[in-house]
Structures are given as C-alpha cells and as structure tokens.
C-alpha cells in the first residue's frame, strides 16, 4: 500500500477540501445509495505497477510475436503490408488530433473537421463519387451498412454478391443484414475473372436491392465486364455497389466512372499499419442524390461559413440521420468511428499526390506481374489461377503438392506465403492467395519463387 496512483490529479489536501464542500467525511458516503450487497468488499485484481514494470511486462509479451523485418509477409486478404511515410506517423501522433473528442463544438475543433473534410474530398476524387463519409470501422462493416442502405433506399430485400469474396467480409455483411432480414445470394465468376452475366441475369429481378462487385476481387483479379454488371443492375432498378482496394485506383478507372451508386472499401493500405487487423478504416460513399444521401450512415463533415461573416468553417452535417437525434429511426447506430485513421489517409494522399499515387500503383502492378510471371514458369504451378489482369494479389495452384505443406516450408524460411484458399473455397484446393506490394524487393520475390520451385519440383 501507499503507492501513488498514477494519473489521478488530486492531492490529499484537495480531497479533504472537496469532501468538506460536499458536506461528507468519507467518499464512501457518495456510494451510500447503492445497495450494500453489490458493493465489493474486496476487489480481486492485480495491484498497481510502476511505468517501468508495465513497459517491461508488455515488451516481454510482445516479444513472442514475429513482425515485418523478422518475417517477409506476402499476405493480404483484408489488411496489407504497405509503406507508411514518416510524415504520416508524425501527423497522426500529434496529440491535438489524437486526444480530441468528436467535434461537437466546431468552433474549437476546426482542425480535425477540416482534416476530415479533406479526407472526404480526397477520397471523393480518388473514387470519382461526390460524397464519402468520415469513416466506418472497416470494409466489411461498410459493406454491411451499404447493403442495409440499399435495402432502405429501394424497399427491396435481395442482395447479389460475388462468389469469390473474403469469407470474413461476407460473414460480417451477412451479420449486419440479418437484423433487416435481407437475403444474400452469390453469383458466379468465370475463369477469366469476368462475371458470368447469364448467371447474373437469371438472378436479377425487381426484388433485388443491389448488386455488389469487388474491384479488384478478393482474389486480386479485375472483372473486365464490370461496367456491364452495373448496367444490368440498373436495368432492374437495383443499386450498383462497388468495393475497392483504393491502391488500384491510380491505374484502374474510378468506380464512380463505372456506374457505382455506392462505393465501399478498405482505407488501411493508405497509410495505416496492419496492427494485427485493427484499427482499419471503412470507406463508404455515394452519389449526391437525395435518396442516397439521406440514407447514408455515419459522420459527414461539410464546409460552411461562420454566422457573422464570410469566414469559411467546417462542421458535422445532416446529423438528423444520426442516432443521437433520430434514436431508433436513425440510418445506423454508428457514433465513434475511425476518425484518426481518416486523418492518416488524408495526410497519406496529400503526400503521395497525383503522381506519387499513380507511381504507387505502378510499383505494385510491376511486382504483381513479375511474381505471377516467375511462378508460372515453374512446372506444376498454375499462376495466376484466373486469366485476368491482377493487382496486388493473385491466386496460384500447386499440383502434386499440398498448399498447406508449401506454406509451412515457406514459413520455415521466414516467409508468410499467403492465405490457404483450400480452407475457404472447396473448388480452390491446393491454392494460395498471395500479396505483393511496394514493400517487396525483387530479391524478396525471387527468394519466394525459388523456394516454391525447390519444393514443387522437388
């Protein structure tokens, strides 16, 4: 006993003065209205520790991890290893952003408001869509909200989604949809990565609220007939939802230009660490159309003016959609989101700028193409599994060898080789989903390919 408790500001004298003002002798009197049976006499919990001890304890626990630097990570599937410029880290560690609350008082919070407005605006340029909200938790929850939004807007209950989707993302979207009783059905994708339009047509009718497609897909391929998919959806009055990995959009056409009504995606590749899967950043945007806008969940920041004059100012807008005003009639329950992650993305996109962002895409595309080419030269390897343009990720299959065994061999050499797809899709036996980014040198890729060659060719 007797240890000073950290972070508590009152001195003993101050406590005495306060007790006196309140008119009590002991702070326990303030708990006198709680039935005594609920008050703990003894609290079974470890004792407080010094900063030195805590730091050592946590470092020791974390030392059991192997991270980038100790391992070469060729794995994506929802979080991807990318480079984060030092300037981004500097900006988001500024305590003025880090330790502020939701900007309920705009006059004292212009900094975060403008930064979030810039996030929305930069994403709007990248996606070529007018409105992007100030963030959702991750791509998967953004997708769940997009499905709900589509159902509210159209009054319909069926959603069509691609067969090859991250199983976790599909599960989250399905959990989100369950409260509204939506029916989710998958449509087929062909061996060249395009959508099976006949299959899609056979499922489309006026009961479909939305058709969803990913661009690039979970398996890294681009559907060449993506525009036709949107057109088919629109023909029956369904909304077209496009899910993106934004790093592809320096090279590939923006979803807004492909007919998307709603865009979702993952912002983590744009300046956020993987952090064992969180925080991530859910992108959610839509066209500027009243029925869409008023159904859009989440925080939205707008540019306005001060009441007195012509000074530009920023504040939260359309709060009448949100839970603190509308309660059970709100478009979503979301309140706390991923604001600081959005600031990181704003800083990242500002730094890379137009040319840097295109170069990022080229760097990734070059490595994807190089690695696919190298793997395809190995007999007994089919790379890529889908005959389509790929970006950042691709699936390959090994004959005469188990994908699980191959991943184990790679790990023995300090390489995390990807995701074992045979555990996710029955038809993709002995297949691996691999990821390359600007982080991987040619030597890293050659090393990976060399091991596969050695293992597969025996």
């Amino acid at each position, binding site marked *: 006993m007797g*240890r000073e*408790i950290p*972070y508590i500001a009152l001195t003993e004298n101050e406590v005495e*003065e*306060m007790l006196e003002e309140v008119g009590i002798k002991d702070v*326990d009197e*303030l708990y006198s209205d709680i*039935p005594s049976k609920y008050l*703990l006499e003894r609290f079974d*919990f470890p*004792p*407080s520790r010094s900063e030195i*001890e805590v730091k050592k304890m946590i470092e020791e626990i974390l*030392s*059991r*991890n*192997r991270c980038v630097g100790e391992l070469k*990570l060729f*794995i994506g599937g929802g979080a991807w290893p990318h480079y984060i410029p030092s300037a981004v880290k500097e900006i988001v560690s500024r*305590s*003025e952003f*880090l*330790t502020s*609350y939701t900007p*309920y*008082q705009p*006059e*004292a919070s212009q*900094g975060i408001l403008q930064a979030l407005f810039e996030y929305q605006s930069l994403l*709007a340029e*990248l996606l070529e869509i*007018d409105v992007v909200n100030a963030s959702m938790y*991750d791509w*998967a929850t953004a997708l769940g909200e997009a499905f709900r939004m589509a159902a509210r807007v159209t009054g319909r209950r069926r959603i069509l989604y691609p067969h090859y989707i*991250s199983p*976790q993302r599909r599960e*989250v979207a399905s959990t989100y949809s*369950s*409260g509204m009783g939506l029916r989710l059905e998958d449509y087929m994708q062909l061996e060249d990565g395009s959508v099976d339009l006949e299959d899609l047509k056979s499922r489309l009718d006026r009961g479909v609220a939305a058709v969803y497609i990913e661009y690039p897909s979970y398996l890294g391929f681009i559907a060449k007939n993506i525009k036709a998919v949107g057109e088919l959806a629109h023909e029956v009055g369904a909304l077209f939802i496009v899910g993106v990995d934004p790093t592809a959009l320096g090279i590939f*056409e923006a979803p807004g230009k492909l007919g998307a009504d709603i865009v979702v995606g993952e912002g983590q590749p744009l300046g956020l*660490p993987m952090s*064992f899967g*969180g*925080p*991530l950043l859910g992108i959610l945007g839509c066209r500027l159309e009243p029925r869409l806008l008023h159904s859009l969940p989440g925080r939205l920041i707008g540019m306005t*003016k*001060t009441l007195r004059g012509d000074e530009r*100012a920023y504040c939260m*807008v359309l709060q*009448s959609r949100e839970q*603190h005003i*509308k*309660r059970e009639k709100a478009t979503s*329950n979301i309140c*706390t989101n991923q*604001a*600081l992650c959005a600031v990181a993305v704003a800083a990242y*996109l500002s730094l890379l700028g137009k040319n840097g962002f295109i170069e990022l895409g*080229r760097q990734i595309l070059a*490595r994807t193409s190089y690695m696919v080419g190298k793997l395809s030269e190995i007999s007994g390897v089919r790379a890529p599994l889908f005959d389509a343009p790929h970006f950042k990720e691709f699936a390959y299959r090994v004959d005469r060898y188990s994908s699980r065994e191959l991943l184990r061999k790679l790990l023995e050499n300090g390489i995390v080789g990807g995701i074992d797809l045979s555990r996710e899709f029955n038809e993709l036996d002995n297949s691996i989903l691999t990821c390359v980014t600007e982080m991987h040198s040619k030597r890293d890729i050659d090393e990976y390919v060399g091991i596969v060659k050695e293992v597969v060719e025996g």
Partner: protein
Amino acid sequence: MRFRQARFVEPLVFELSRPGAHGSEFPVLEPELERSLEEALNEIPEELRRRDLGLPELSEPDVIRHFTRLSEMNYSITAGMYPLGSCTMKYNPVLNEEVASSPKVLDVHPLQPEETVQGCLKLLYDLEQLLKKLTGMDRFSFQPSAGAHGEFLGCLIIREYHRSKGRNRKIMIIPDSAHGTNPASAAMAGFEVRVVKSNECGCVDVEELERMVDEDVAGIMLTNPNTLGIFEKDIERIVEIIHGVDGLLYYDGANLNALLGKVRPGDMGFDIIHLNLHKTFSTPHGGGGPGSGPIGVVEKLVDFLPPPLVEYDEESDRYYLDYDRPRSVGRVKMFHGNFSVLVKTYAYLLRMGGDGLRKVAETSVLTSNYLMRKIEKLRGVSLPFDPKRPRKHEFVVSLQPLYKETGVMVIDVAKRLLDYGYHAPTIYFPLIVDEAFMVEPTETESKREIDGFYQALKDVLDEAYRDPERVKNAPYNTAVGRVDEVRASRPKTMIPSWRVYRRMEG
C-alpha cells in the same frame, strides 16, 4: 480571459497544390520489373484505364505544415479540461501510446500463422482475464470497434438467445434517459423499441416497467449509473422483473468509470455488457475514433459470441484461436478488433491495478459531486431530480432558469465557455432535462482545473444576466466564430466535398 486559439486561414490541400511538387518517392524499378509493368499495363482494357486523377501535388514540408496548423486549431484533452458528460474524457497516458507503437504491434498481419503471433494472442487472453475480474462476466469478444458496435452485437446475442429457446421476442425496453445509440442498435438488430419513463427520482419507473413487461419482451438496455449520473437504486427489482420473463439485461458500459472496483455489473445481474475502452480505460478518442467496445457475457450466452475466441493450452503453453463456434451470431468485424487500442487498455489496467481503479472511481465521483454542489448554487441553474441524492461520475443541471430570465440558451453558454479555454460539457442531453448541461470532470483533473472551470461558468452566467448579447454571439477566441450549422446541412448550400464545392462555384 486567458485563452486564444490559433486562427490560421488555412486553405484546403487542393488549394495548396503546386503542380510538379511531390512529397513521396519510390524505389527505381529494375528493368525486369519495368518490363513486367509494361506487359501488365497492356493487358488492361481501354475502358478500365484510369484517365484522370484529381489529387493535389504538395511537398513534404507543405503537408507537415498544413496539418500542423490544422492541429493547432483543435482542442484536446492534452491541452485542457474536457468535461463532456457521458464521454469520460480523462487524460490519455503517453505510456500507452509508446507501448502500442512497437513494430510488434503495428507490423503484424492478422492472418499470420498462430505460432508467429503468440504475443498478440497472449495479450488478448490476459486482457480478457482482467476484464472478467472487473465486470463479473464470463467471456469477452474484442471484435466491436466502438460502444455502439458492441451494443449491436449484444442485441444480436439477445435475439439469438430467444431464438435458441424457440421464440421470437420483438421488444427491447430502453429508458427515456438512454444514450441514442441504445435504441438505434436495438432497431438495427431488428427489435421494436419500447421506452420506459424515468420517475421523479430520475430512475427507471419500476411500476411502469412492470406493466410493460410481458412475454414479448426480449430484454432491457440500461446504463447504471444512468445518464443523469444517478445510480438505479431499484436495480434488484428491475433484474427480477426482466429475468422473470426470461428476458436479458444489457449493460451500457459508457458510465462504468464510477463503479470501477466498487460494483461489478455481473453481480447486479446483468447478462451482457459493453465497455468503452476509449472512455473508461484512457485510450485516446482520436477526434471520433478509433475506439473499442468489447462485450462481455455470462456463461449461458458464451456460445453466441462471434468467432474466434482466444484459448490457452497449458500443456504446450500455446495460445490459439477457436473458430469452431456453430451457434455464434456471426462476425461483426474483420479479424480481432482494434488490437492496438487493446494494447493501450492493457497497459492502463496493469498500471492502475485494483487499488488504482477503485481510486479512479472514487475520485471521479468526488470531483463530480464537488463541482455539482458548487454549480447548483449559481444563479440561472437548477438541479433536477432528487437534489439531495449524490450523483456518481457525472451530473446534469438545467439552465432553464437562465433561459427564462435572460433568453440565453445552453448552447450560448457552451460557446462562451470555449472562450475561457474549456471544452463545453454535453448539452441538450439527456432529452428529459430542459436546457440540459451534463458535466463529467473525471479523476484526472486537479482541483485547480475544476475550480477554474467553475469560475469560468460563473463568469459566463453573470455575463448572461448583465450582457446577454455578448454570450449569444460567442465564441470570440476560437479559431472561427459561431459556425452556421443550419446552412451547412441545407440541401442547396451543403458542401460535403471539394468536388461538390468546385461544381457549385462553377
């Protein structure tokens, strides 16, 4: 008046753009990679090639200065007191930031093989053990990223619990003083919301509750202490009534700060709880997130938690993920929740310990009652609901008398407080109090800060009687004057992006 916020006229990044400027570079592509790139580019169909990219062009110093200036126009808990009721804006220890910025946290992929992430798994496992002790719950899921996200998951579990018993219960009961997220979350999970009124003591009206509860009721969502800062004294009876129809009790953990180490929600009879790690456990709020809202449940609900849960095999000293959860309501997020936020929470809990957490609760309750007893005596203020009862970590006064006597509204008072260097308390909430002014000082403010806030409020109220217009036109010392929020949301003048702005300006 000792406060003056920075007032930069800072253009948008788009307006700062200087064609040709660049803030990043990449390795030069080797010839082989360059060839691969050309091949890949040729494969892309014409109509899928990006034509135009409207991102700005800036140098690294441009970008750093821009965001630094913006940050200087942002109030934060690091800079001063932030007495937002129900938000628990306590000091955010910098140790947390340091331990969570290790590459062993940041540069780890969520789908790495288990043997390479034993540290993450052990930390999750150990944190769960601490939260169980703290709340009296049996298992936790870390997937929810925020309080509301936890509520949504909790509501799905309540629905699934009833389904597992072969019934479709439709009604969720929620007090009129509840946070707005409660009814929104219940509705998202497919429930109809039935509102129970507060009585003259500011607590759930138990007689009305008894009349409302029938076999259609799935459960109740409660905050205790409630948003008035009052402990629900009839909690035992409420639990009896709800459990009497086999309903479930959901505990909104936003106000747990008052009870840390003193009272456990599990002991009161709650079945599900969410915690706001970014409130009670000192992780920063980041201007609106990321937070973390893990939920804990009692034994009979463990099967419904989303996959995976972290388990420990003592024999091999290995931690592993259990994905085999056939009765689960399903995932609510990718991967394992906001992991780096969990690391910060773990550091905080280790540092505070049981003795520290109890002192957090007691001190937060003391500072709140101290400030309330001083503020209630001010002209223009009234203390609704059983003024003699102690409040817990927060309290709500009404500025209705001030409004009636001067025409100055609570929002004006809030704005004027900004001029004194204090963030305003929560206003117009809970909805059952007119001109509500909801204050939560927390345990990390010194008496000097708290007295300073009191003095500032006193000065503002005095000024409102003397010169109401001065208060109504506040603030004056912030980065900008009073913002036109109506214009901001009007369809014809709303500007949600630079893209839309450009179009409107023609």
